[in-house]
């Protein structure tokens, strides 16, 4: 088990290095940088802009910049924003909590609704119930966050005056964003859950359980669900990795604090250090979530060993 964890940690470090290197060069290959654009609006001369770029080391050869940034990262220094001059670690740190809360809430909504719908689609007691659930799954799969979010705001904020449409300083402001983002996850989770459970209905171990005279509910919960949830865990892990993209839209739509807004501004400004920092953070989150998912899959499915 320890060996497995060490191997996974090694792979995660390699992933982080690759993600950073790709981000570093991709950002710098793109023309333009934050300094020129910011100062161009302030009436600075070409000489003044060149001087400022030199102060920030942006005029140095790329390999030299790469070495310096990588060296800083190894010492835990993410650098400073080219636009705000603030340490990137501070900028990320003060936003990360809000994004994690939103992502966790959305994941909770997505898993509960997605798994629930998937079970009904596969194991519902009547055809009508299964079809209704399948229709809802199709709707969820085809509705983008922006659309779902706008509908939720219109319904709960503008028409019913039940929930705030904007902000992040109150627990109630979490509800609509979590629902919007969670519903976008629920569709794919429900689809995989339904397919996975349906494929197990005629498996040998299910027929055996039936032959032993176990009740339908007992077979569903004890046998089908346990084996069928392994691929669902995998898809939940993948969705958790993609949550960051969803939070960008959700945070913008619901005017919430979070890392998505910072990322969006940093990409638009070509603020390299900030984008790099968030890319590395995303890679860490993705690696950790995948490792946890693998371990959970092994726990759920007796056919999978965590050390394989």
């Amino acid at each position, binding site marked *: 088990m320890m060996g497995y964890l060490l191997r996974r940690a090694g792979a995660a470090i390699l992933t982080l290095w690759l993600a950073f290197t790709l981000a570093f060069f991709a950002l710098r290959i793109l023309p*333009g*940088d934050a300094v020129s654009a910011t100062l161009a609006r*302030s009436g*600075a001369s070409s000489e003044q802009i060149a001087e400022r770029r030199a102060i920030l080391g942006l005029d140095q050869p790329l390999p030299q910049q790469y070495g310096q940034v990588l060296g800083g990262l190894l010492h835990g220094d993410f650098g400073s924003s080219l636009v705000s001059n603030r340490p990137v670690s501070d900028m990320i740190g003060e936003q990360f909590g809000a994004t994690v809360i939103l992502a966790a809430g959305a994941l909770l909504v997505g898993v509960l609704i997605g798994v629930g719908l998937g079970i009904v689609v596969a194991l519902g007691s009547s055809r009508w119930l299964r079809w209704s659930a399948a229709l809802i799954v199709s709707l969820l799969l085809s509705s983008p966050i922006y659309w779902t979010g706008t509908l939720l705001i219109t319904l709960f904020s503008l028409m019913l005056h039940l929930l705030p*449409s904007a902000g992040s300083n109150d627990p109630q402001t979490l509800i609509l964003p979590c629902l919007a983002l969670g519903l976008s996850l629920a569709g794919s989770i429900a689809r995989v859950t339904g397919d996975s459970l349906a494929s197990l209905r005629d498996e040998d171990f299910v027929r055996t359980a039936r032959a032993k005279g176990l009740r339908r509910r007992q077979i569903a919960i004890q046998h089908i669900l346990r084996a069928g949830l392994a691929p669902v865990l995998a898809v939940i892990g993948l969705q958790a990795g993609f949550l960051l993209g969803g939070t960008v839209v959700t945070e913008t739509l619901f005017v*919430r*604090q979070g890392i998505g807004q910072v990322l969006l501004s940093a990409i638009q*400004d070509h603020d390299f250090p900030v984008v790099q920092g968030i890319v590395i953070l995303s890679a860490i989150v993705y690696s950790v979530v995948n490792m946890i998912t693998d371990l959970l899959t092994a*726990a759920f499915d007796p056919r999978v060993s965590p050390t394989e």
Partner: protein
Amino acid sequence: MRTRRLLTSIILMIFVLMACASALFVVILFGSGKKVVAEASKNHIVYGLTLMPSGFDPHVNSSSELGIVLRSVYDTLLYRDPQTKAFVPGLAEKWSISDDGLTYTFNLRAGVKFQDGTPFDAKAVAVNLDRITNPATKSQKALFLLGPYDHYTIVDPMTIQIVLKQPYAPLLDGLSQVYTGIASPNALQSYDLARYQFHQVGTGPFSMVDYIPGDHLTIRRNPDYKWGPPFYNPPTANSVDEIEFRFFTDPATRATALESDAAQIMGELSPTDATLFTGNSNVRLYPQPIPGAPLQFLFNVSSEPTDQLQVRQALIQAINRSGIVDAVFQQFSPVAYGPLSAVSPYYDPEVTKLYPYSSTAALDQLHGLGFVQSKENPILHKGTQQTLQNLRLVMVVPPWGFAPQVAQKLQIQWKQLGADVVIKEVPSFTDLVAALKDKDNDYNLIVYNDFGLDPSFLNGMFGKQAFNNWTHFESDDLDNWLTSATASQSEDERKTYYMQVQKLIMDQALIVPIRDYVNLNGARANVNGLSFDAYGWFPLLPNLTLGDTPKTATPTS
């Protein structure tokens, strides 16, 4: 096997926790009922900002949004009257300029205290000048507002002189802007460059309470403030005493927030939303003209076919600007005719007579230049097969200010004329600058606009060596006039120079002016007294009051 059981237990625990969280979720959802809708308390309002500045330090950062908040946290040495645009005393009671235009002497106001109790004096001004000009500050705007700053001299505790390397008339304008606001020396000493923005202290009518990046920034009325300019009203029982600023970066969220009362004031509404609010008794509109350079398309005179003056003139004449402005901005913006908007100082109204819309006259002019259309080539072209020149135009268009919509209208109208028009959209200002600096990027038109009261921003657009001279037009006359206007202390002289500058720019057809910028602000009907400073962007927050009965609207249309 033991590991598997342990993992199974953990998973079960996770599901139990998830169930508990769900229950909590439901309790929050249904238990709190209707109380949850954010409502403004009597003297507290939420003000919607339209972008999230990457930094809020006025000496360091440059966005207009920071000024909306901090204009009321800081005083400046001078102010500009919102109506007359004249300079009026701020922290400096009096000022004088030496005959050579190099030395500015400021007699400072006595009895002023910063919000942390620090007394205001010449040393405080000196500390601020040192901070702005320190290379480590990496100032993005304030430094450039000081122009050719050289040094200061403290004459006595309440008198300071600023000495320039060369005459620079826009200095007073620079010292009237929030970016040169005077901060408490004690606060600047207590917090480093990165942290000061969270603990800002000025002498203004509001004090900073807290700033949570990406979430909100709150300011509260300064009860000791009594040295404001004449256009700040004294506080009353109904005055707004606390303002929470939130970031509504997505235009689609702004009208919703105003409608649902999640925000009581909102800037930069879309013309469509503003039209919808026109008949809404809960919301009032405050369209605010902004002085500066209108939304315009700059012609690149170094690229074919816009290198020919007559082609540029014909292209301007061929467009129905009123039609474009009505369609895109829905009567909320005036048509622009020159490089300065109509509310800018030194604006020359003669420009309105230039280039009246006539597609026939435009086509005649192009025919006169040898451009023809044929069955084989419906695009206006001239020359033989070897020297064929199509009337092909490439526009570089950023996403803000409805530039893409305007570009599409221009494309349609110029296509009707017979031109081939290509729109290249860029996602941000950074990409715009990058695209223009790319030597392989051959463009004919580029979108630009700028804000400011002093027309010295034209130096950056049309000066020979200017970083933003995207027209690539070079003229000794234009350069001399711009330089002389910047140096001259005589209002009459400056006016003469800027009249000549505007005439030359339009005679040379260097720009296609589209619309004067108007900020469409909206406020809930119980908010009174919303008005803006001379620069148009920054609200006079001390004048805001709240009342149940809407008073007479004072929209600055």
